[in-house]
């Protein structure tokens, strides 16, 4: 019963803060609302008995990526007056593109067989041990490939950041 | 040119700064850090130098130059004759006075025929150099080892005769200030201030 209330509470907060990301005028507020959304998502993970995912979600998204976002947004001088004007055409195109992404998402969800886990407390897949075993046996190849992707991205960033000697 | 001959070391503890390449051990900095930590830790057990002022007082020198006193002579008469030499010698111009003539019935109050009706020292101006003391031909003003207490208002720091003149029943002992050198100096008034 308690988990149900928690679920509704977290979902409400998640939705409201997600909408506030779009509605708030100040970029910093948007970033902070997004962080709040991530926290509520982490809460959802905990409700699904996936503590590892929840904590990693907080560490990676809230602790690292959003901090970097905050960092850049703070240093950018984004005033309300400085907000660049969008033409009607731009707005139209943006709405179209966004709407199409939305359609695609809905289409995917419809075709996807949503299996409802009846008793999330009983599933142990979200725990560290099981997750690690799955990652390093079944999904070893994609896991290692993604790490190579990260490495190359890192090397690329260092290359870009390096001063040109000549 | 040989630079060494011009080097004067006062403490023999100065070290010439060098930018030599550090050894591997030095590059870890840990030995140096531990050395520093040991030094601070050894200070943990050293005697504190703090003097807790109102309860504990620092021992002053016998000839400490603190709050002034206007002395009375042995019969309890004011020695000051308002000659103004102290005001003249004062580098901070902290001393003012108004002279008055002694009446017949005031013989037991003032030693000389002329006396200071008003004698004020501005303690905020005073630099406690002691020139007034050495200028005084009548040995009337002395600096003592007492301190000027703190006040909240500036005008309270202008001290009049009510504070400066010593009380008959509470004499201020300045005998320790009269070291043989001082007495010798005071004998020869032609030397400095009375010239």
């Amino acid at each position: 019963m308690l988990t149900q209330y928690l679920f509704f509470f977290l979902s409400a907060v998640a939705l409201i803060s997600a909408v506030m990301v779009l509605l708030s005028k100040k970029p910093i507020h948007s970033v902070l609302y997004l962080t709040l959304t991530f926290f509520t998502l982490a809460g959802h993970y905990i409700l699904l008995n996936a503590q590892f995912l929840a904590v990693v979600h907080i560490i990676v998204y809230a602790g690292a990526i959003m901090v970097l976002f905050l960092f850049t947004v703070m240093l950018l001088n984004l005033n309300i007056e400085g907000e660049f004007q969008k033409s009607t055409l731009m707005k139209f195109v943006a709405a179209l593109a966004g709407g199409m992404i939305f359609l695609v998402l809905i289409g995917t969800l419809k075709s996807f067989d949503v299996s409802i886990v009846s008793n999330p407390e009983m599933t142990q897949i979200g725990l560290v041990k099981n997750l690690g075993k799955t990652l390093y046996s079944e999904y070893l190849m994609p896991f290692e490939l993604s790490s190579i992707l990260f490495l190359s991205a890192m090397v690329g960033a260092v290359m870009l950041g390096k001063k040109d000697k000549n | 040119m040989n630079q060494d001959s011009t080097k004067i070391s006062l403490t023999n503890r100065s070290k010439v700064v060098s930018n030599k390449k550090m050894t591997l051990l030095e590059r870890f900095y840990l030995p140096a850090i531990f050395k520093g930590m040991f030094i601070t830790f050894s200070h943990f057990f050293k005697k504190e130098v703090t003097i807790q002022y109102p309860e504990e007082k620092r021992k002053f020198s016998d000839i400490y130059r603190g709050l002034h006193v206007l002395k009375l002579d042995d019969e309890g008469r004011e020695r000051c004759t308002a000659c103004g030499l102290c005001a003249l010698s004062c580098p901070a111009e902290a001393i003012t006075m108004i002279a008055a003539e002694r009446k017949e019935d005031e013989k037991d109050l003032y030693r000389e025929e002329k006396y200071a009706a008003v004698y004020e020292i501005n303690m905020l101006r005073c630099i406690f150099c002691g020139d007034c003391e050495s200028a005084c031909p009548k040995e009337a003003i002395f600096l003592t080892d007492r301190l000027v207490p703190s006040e909240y208002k500036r005008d309270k720091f202008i001290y009049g005769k009510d504070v400066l003149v010593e009380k008959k029943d509470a004499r201020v002992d300045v005998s320790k200030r009269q070291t043989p050198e001082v007495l010798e100096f005071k004998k020869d008034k032609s030397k400095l201030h009375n010239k």
Partner: protein
Amino acid sequence: MDIHFILYKLILAAAILLLSLVIAMYATLFERKIAGFFQDRLGPNRAGTFGLLQPVADGVKLFFKEEFMPANADKVLYILGPSLTMLVALLASAVIPWGGTLMIGGHEYALQVADVNIGVLYVFAVISIGVYGVMIGGWASNNKYALMGAVRAASQMISYELAMSMSIVTIVMTSGSLSLNDIVAQQHGMNWNVFTQPIGFVVFLICAFAETNRSPFDLPECETELIGGYHTEYSSMKLGFYLFAEYINIFISSAMISSLYFGGYNFPFMNDLGLSHNMVTILGTVALFAKISFFGFVFMWVRWTLPRFRYDQLMRFGWKGLMPWAMANMILTGFFHLLFKK
């Protein structure tokens, strides 16, 4: 989930909260006392005997000071900053095992608020969101120095978090568990991790200094360059929260160091003394607090010994000094673990 259980957890959480606050309060006094002794002074001794009432006096002073808010500050975020810092500082204490178990009336009570099976990761998460309070506060002040302090704090915390995580990862590798309770229990009988992980310990200790923004890594509030850093514009109890959170962080960091590397509530010969179960637990808690006090002292000792880093030195040290050591330590540990433990 009976009422009994909830009550016991509530009491334990409240006790630990209270304890952290009181310890942080008195840590301010000890910091000043110790600074005094290191500098051949006495330190505060006017409020109460040995200045024992000094923290109370400080608190009262902070409460009665003027609440100042810069004209163009972001009001909500300005208040959110110190609150968040305080909240995050207090969060980490939930997973630290403060002792063994107490047997009262046939029930076993563990002296740990939440024995999460990912305790170490939880601590990571709390550390990583610790940046927000400082950054939000610094930005919301609408002040250059505050913003610079906030940016410094954030980049410093992010940089040192990596090396810190890596040194903890080695602990996780050797103990095979992410639960702090397991990690502490495995160090039973002088099997302290510090003996097997000396490099990891040094890296962790240095990173702990950096994460708590303590000297020699106190650049975020470096008064010679940035006035007060991220809390330049803060006054009254909001400033108090920032300063207070620093001491709570020291307390929690010391507790983490003691739990991860120095056996937590374990003490030598704890099973050979022939004491009752409860007595051993209480002594263990006392031992843990002795270790915590020692590391708290080390924090202060280092602060009054070492000068502050320059900013580029700090970054270079974090990335080029500590990171390789932490990585090498991790790889070596993995190597030895494979070779000998299997």
